[in-house]
């Protein structure tokens, strides 16, 4: 019964960890940021899954419906999506500046140049 009730969360955790793996294993800064976005989108799915009620309806009130899914996680995640795209934009702008200064977006190359200074 545990597997039937929780497998949804487990697959979402697998997705989160895939994004996390890209962040810590990849040496390319652009790919790191894409990994961070994958991680983030998976966290959104986790939150929205928690708000779901079996046989619930979209939280737009209408006659003849009594069970609505929880609107609160939806509001939180709407805010998080917009904040997420702002941080992505800022991170990518930093990557462009790093590329202009170092001529590379590979972590190892940037470390090598810093040590040879």
């Amino acid at each position, binding site marked *: 019964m545990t597997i039937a009730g*929780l497998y*949804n*969360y*487990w*697959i979402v955790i*697998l*997705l*989160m*960890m895939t994004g*996390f*793996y890209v962040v*810590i*294993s990849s*040496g*390319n800064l*652009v*790919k790191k*940021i*894409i990994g961070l*976005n*994958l991680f983030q*989108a998976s966290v959104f*799915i986790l939150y*929205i*899954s*928690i708000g*779901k*009620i*079996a046989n619930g309806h*979209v*939280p737009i*009130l209408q006659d003849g419906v009594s*069970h*609505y*899914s*929880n*609107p*609160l*996680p*939806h*509001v939180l*995640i*709407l*805010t998080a*999506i*917009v*904040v997420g795209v*702002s*941080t*992505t*934009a*800022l991170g*990518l*702008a930093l*990557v*462009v*500046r790093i*590329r202009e200064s170092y001529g590379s*977006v*590979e972590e190892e190359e940037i470390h090598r140049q810093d040590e040879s200074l």
Partner: protein
Amino acid sequence: MLIEAVNIVLLALLAATAIAAVRLHDLFAVAMMFGIYSLLAAVMFVLLDALDVAFTEAAVGVGISTVLMLATIGLVGRHELPSTHRSLLPLAVVVATGAALIYGTLDMPFFGDPGAPVHQHVAPYYISQSPHQTGLPNVVTSVLASYRGYDTLGELAVIFTAGVGVLALLGLRRRKRPGKHRTAQ
């Protein structure tokens, strides 16, 4: 039953897309995989009764984020160099974190359980009072713009700060090449 089947197919597609993004080294392809991933996530949100989140994710996640990534790839180059160091340590960290998180879910209420603690507080109040207090049938809108309007104002502050940051990094700076500038003087 149909909804469960769609749910499983979507989760499998999400996992396949994410793993493809890990394995690819062409950044253009990785950005496209991220776009597909966001679109699948938006479909997942429709299935989970979160329509407002679904169209925001479809517009912002699939649209704006992917365009920003493609613009950056256009400026910095599209090929990732193969990593020279071993990838065992990151894998170990990820497996340990994932195992800890899965251990954490064992205490969670089951997926879709209407008796879960998260559904007992505030949310029923918003659902029952929203039409009388704000006059809006869409509870997500009334919570976002009315009950928690200050949170949305804070969100605007974050977007403004990020916009100023991006402009400071890329826009306001005078474009000059260090060598040529000196010879011009």
